[in-house]
C-alpha cells in the first residue's frame, strides 16, 4: 500500500478534508513501531516521518523542546544529548515523536521519569475536519480549559493527526549502573529494590532480575553496592541500553498488562515461564504462542482494575485489548467531536472473532 508523505500541515489538512468528504479514511503511521494504527484498516496511509521532522525550537535553559511529529525519537535524543538532556520516551529504532505520543508509549524507566503523558505540554494536530487545532501550551504548569493534550496521548490516530509537540525534557542522569542477578527470587528482589533510592527500572523474568540505577554518582554507587550484597549477581558500571535481556521480544504473542501491584502475583501464577514484570508499578508481560491464548490474562487484568494490550508477531498490529474505567459511550462522543465524518479509524479493540 502506498504511503503518502505530506510536505506541510496544509497539505495534510487537504488530504484529511478530502477523506472526510469522500468517506474514505486517513491512517496515520509514525515509524510503524508501536502498531498504533491497525494494519487491517482500509484507507490512505500517511506518514509525517519523511518530511515533517524538524526540531522547531529548543532552548535548553527552558527544558522544553518543540518538534514536528515526524521527527525520529532517536534524532531528538541526539539533539537533547548535546545539552545533557533527554525526553522520557524509550528509543525504538525508527519510532517518531508523534507515534510515541499517539501510542502513549511510556518508558520502562517510568518509575523515575514519569509516564509519557506527563511530558507532553502541548500539541498541534489536524482534526477530522482538517482544522489545525492547538491544545495545551508551552508552559510546565497549565490549568487552562479541558486537558485535550492527555486525551490525544494514546488515542492512536483516531482523533486527529499530531503534527507538532511541545515536550518537557529533563536533565540526563549523571550516573548509571545496572545490577543483574540470576538467582534472586521475585519477593527478595522487590524488598531489596524498595530499599534503594535511585532505581529507575527493575525488570524480573523467570530467570533474571535486572535493575537500572540512575542518579547522582554517590547515590548510584551506594545503591549498587547494597543491591549486589542482597541479591548477589553482577554490577555493570557502564551499561549500554537497558534492559539487556528483553525476554518478551522472543515470544510469538505478548499481552502487556498494567495492574495494581498487588494483583501481579495472581497474573504470574498462571503464566508458566513466559513472563516478565516491572518490580514497581504493576507492569507485566505474559507470552504465548497465539494472541487468543492470552485473552484470559487480559480479562483478569481488566477485571482487577487494570489495562491490557496485545502484541502479536512482529509486523502485526498492536491492539489495545481492554481497559478498566473506559466509558465507550462518552468515548464515542468524544471521537465524534474530533472526527464527525469518520476520516480516521475507530479506536480498534481486539476481539476474538
Amino acid at each position, binding site marked *: 500500500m502506498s504511503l503518502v508523505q505530506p510536505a506541510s500541515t496544509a497539505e495534510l489538512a487537504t488530504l484529511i478534508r478530502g477523506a472526510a468528504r469522500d468517506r474514505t479514511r486517513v491512517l496515520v503511521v509514525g515509524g510503524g513501531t508501536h502498531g498504533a494504527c491497525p494494519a487491517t484498516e482500509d484507507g490512505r496511509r500517511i506518514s509525517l516521518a519523511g518530511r515533517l521532522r524538524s526540531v522547531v525550537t529548543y*532552548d535548553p*535553559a*527552558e*527544558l522544553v523542546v518543540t518538534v514536528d511529529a515526524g521527527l525520529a525519537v532517536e534524532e531528538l535524543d541526539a539533539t537533547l544529548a548535546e545539552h*545533557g538532556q533527554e525526553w522520557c520516551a524509550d528509543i525504538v529504532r525508527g519510532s517518531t515523536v508523534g507515534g510515541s505520543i499517539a501510542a502513549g508509549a511510556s518508558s520502562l524507566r517510568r518509575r523515575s521519569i*514519569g*509516564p509519557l*503523558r*506527563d511530558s507532553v505540554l502541548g500539541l498541534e494536530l489536524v482534526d477530522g475536519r482538517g482544522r489545525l*487545532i*492547538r491544545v495545551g501550551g*508551552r*508552559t*510546565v*504548569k*497549565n*490549568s*487552562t*480549559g*479541558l*486537558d*485535550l493534550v*492527555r*486525551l490525544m496521548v*494514546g*488515542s492512536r490516530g483516531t*482523533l486527529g493527526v499530531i503534527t507538532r509537540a511541545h515536550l518537557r525534557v*529533563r*536533565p540526563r542522569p549523571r550516573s548509571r549502573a545496572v545490577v543483574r542477578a540470576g538467582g534472586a527470587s521475585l519477593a527478595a528482589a522487590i524488598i531489596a529494590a524498595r530499599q534503594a*533510592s535511585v532505581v529507575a527500572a527493575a525488570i524480573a523474568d523467570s530467570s533474571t532480575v535486572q535493575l537500572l540505577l540512575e*542518579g*547522582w*554518582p*554517590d*547515590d*548510584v554507587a551506594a545503591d549498587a553496592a547494597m543491591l549486589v550484597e542482597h541479591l548477589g549477581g553482577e554490577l555493570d558500571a557502564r551499561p549500554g541500553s537497558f534492559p539487556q535481556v528483553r525476554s518478551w521480544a522472543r515470544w510469538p504473542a505478548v499481552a502487556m498488562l*498494567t*495492574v*495494581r501491584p*498487588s494483583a501481579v502475583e495472581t497474573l504470574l501464577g498462571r503464566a508458566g515461564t513466559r513472563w516478565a514484570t516491572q518490580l514497581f508499578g*504493576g507492569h507485566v508481560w505474559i507470552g504465548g504462542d497465539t494472541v487468543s491464548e492470552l485473552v484470559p490474562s487480559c480479562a483478569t487484568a481488566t477485571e482487577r*482494575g487494570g*489495562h*491490557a494490550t496485545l502484541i502479536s508477531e512482529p509486523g502485526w498490529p498492536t491492539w*489495545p*485489548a*481492554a*481497559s*478498566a*474505567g*473506559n*466509558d465507550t459511550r*462518552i*468515548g464515542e*462522543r*468524544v471521537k*465524534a*467531536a*474530533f472526527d464527525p465524518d469518520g476520516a480516521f479509524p475507530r*479506536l480498534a479493540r481486539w476481539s476474538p472473532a
Partner: protein
Amino acid sequence: MTRRSTLGAEPGERGGIVGRVVRELEAILGPSAVRADPLSLRLYARDASMIQGTCSVVALPSNAVEVAACVTVARRHGLPVVPRGAGSGLAGGATPLGDAVVVATTRMRTIESVSVEDGVAWVEAGVLNLDLKEWLAPLGLTFAPDPASEACSTIGGNVATNAGGPRCLLRGVTRNHVRAVDIVLADGQIVRLGAEAADPDGYDLRALVVGSEGTLGIVTSACVALTPVATGVRVILAGFPSIEGAATGVSEIVATGVSASAIELMDRPVVQVIEAFAQAGYPLDAEAVVLIELDGPPGAVAEQSAIVEQVMTGHGAIGITVAEDADRRARLWKGRKSAQGAITRIAPDFYQYDCAVPRTRLVDAVIATRRIAAANGLTVVNVFHAGDGNLHPFIMFDRRQPGTLDRVLATAEGIAEACVRLGGVLSGEHGIGLEKRDLMRLMFSAEELELHRAVRMAFDPDGLSNPGKVLPELAAVAAPSERSTVDHAGSRS
C-alpha cells in the same frame, strides 16, 4: 443573568419550580441537607473569587447516590447544577449563576480505602487535602499537591481545578496524581473513569475530568496516587540585589539540571511585609528573595545544593541561608506561607492573579505586571512559583476609592494578555472559572473553542453541569453584568 436557567420557564413560574425542587430534594436528602433560606443562598452564592453569583437552592448530599439524585431532580426541572467543595477556588468555578442548584460535597468526607502496596487511596470528594495528608503521614505517604488552601480545600475541588502548589515543581500537579474518578454525569449516571492501575489505554477520559471545573459532571470520589514523604530535605534561601538577577539565577539553576522540589520567589515589597509579620529571617536589603527546597538521597541533595549555592553567588546573592533541621526549615517556609496574610497589612484589598509563562520569560513577565499595574494607577507585588514559571501577582487596591475595581480588572486582563504574548497560558493552577472565561479567546481560536465545547458536550449534551464556566458563550458577548457584580476582595485567610 439568564443563561440556561429554568429552561423554557417564564419568570412567574420560577418560584414554583424552585419550591418543587426544594421539596423533592428534602424528600430524598432529608430537610437538614437542603438549604433555601436567604442567608444560605447568600453564603453559597460565591466562592473565594471576586465574583458575586446567585443560586436557588443548596443541597448537601452524603454520598454518590444522593449526588446523583440531586442531579436528576435539578435536570427534571431544567435547573443547572454547580458542584462545590470548600468554595476556596479563586477563579469563580464554584460561583453559581441564575437559579443554579449548588451541590456541595462537604458532607462526603470518608477516606474509603488506602492501599500501601498499591500506592493508591480512594477518597470522597469532600475530604480535605490536609486531612488526607494527616491520615497518610503515619504510613510515610502523602498526597503530593499542596495548594496554599490545603487546610480547607477539598480533594474534589483540587480535582476540579487541577490544583497545584509550591512543591508541584518536582512532583507534579493534581492531574499527575489522580488515577480514577467516580463522576455523576448530567444525566444522573454514576460512571468510573480511569482505574487504580497507572497508564490507561484508549481515550484518557479521566484526564479530561481533572481541571474541568465541574463542567463535565460532579466528581464524588477520586482514586489518588500516594507519594512517599520526602526525606533528606534541605531549604536554601538567598536575597538578590535585583529581581532580574533572582529570576535569571532560578532559570540557570533549573537549566543546570537541579531538580528542586520547590523554587519560590518573592519581591522586595512582599519580603518587607513578610518579615515584619513572620520574623522568618529574610534579608530586608534584598530586591528579591528566592527559597529553594531540595530532597532525596544524600548524594543528590549535596551535589544539587552545591550547584544552587554556586549559581546564586554568581548572580550576586546576599546572605545564603541553608536549613536542614525541621524547625529551621519550617521558619524559612513560614515567611513564604504567610505572604497572603501579611499582604493584608499593606493593602485594604488585594486580588491574587494566576498566570504561567515559559520560565525563561519570568523577568519579562514581572516587568510587564509592574508596568501594567502602574499604567492603571495600582501597585502589584509578586510571590510566585518561579521554578515552573507560575506567576501570582497580587494587585493591591482600596475598594472604597471609586472606579478602582475597573482598574483592577483592567490590570488583571492586561497581565493575562502580556503572559499569553510571552508564550504563556491564562492559568497555571487556579483554573479559568468565570474569572478568565472571556479571556480564553486570547489563547484559542474559534475553532479550538468549538472543539472544547464539543468535548464538553460529549459528557453533558444539555449543558446543565456548571454552565457558563471555563468556555466563553458562543455568542461571543462578554457578560458585563457579571463583571460589574465584583464587590469584594482580599478577605481570604
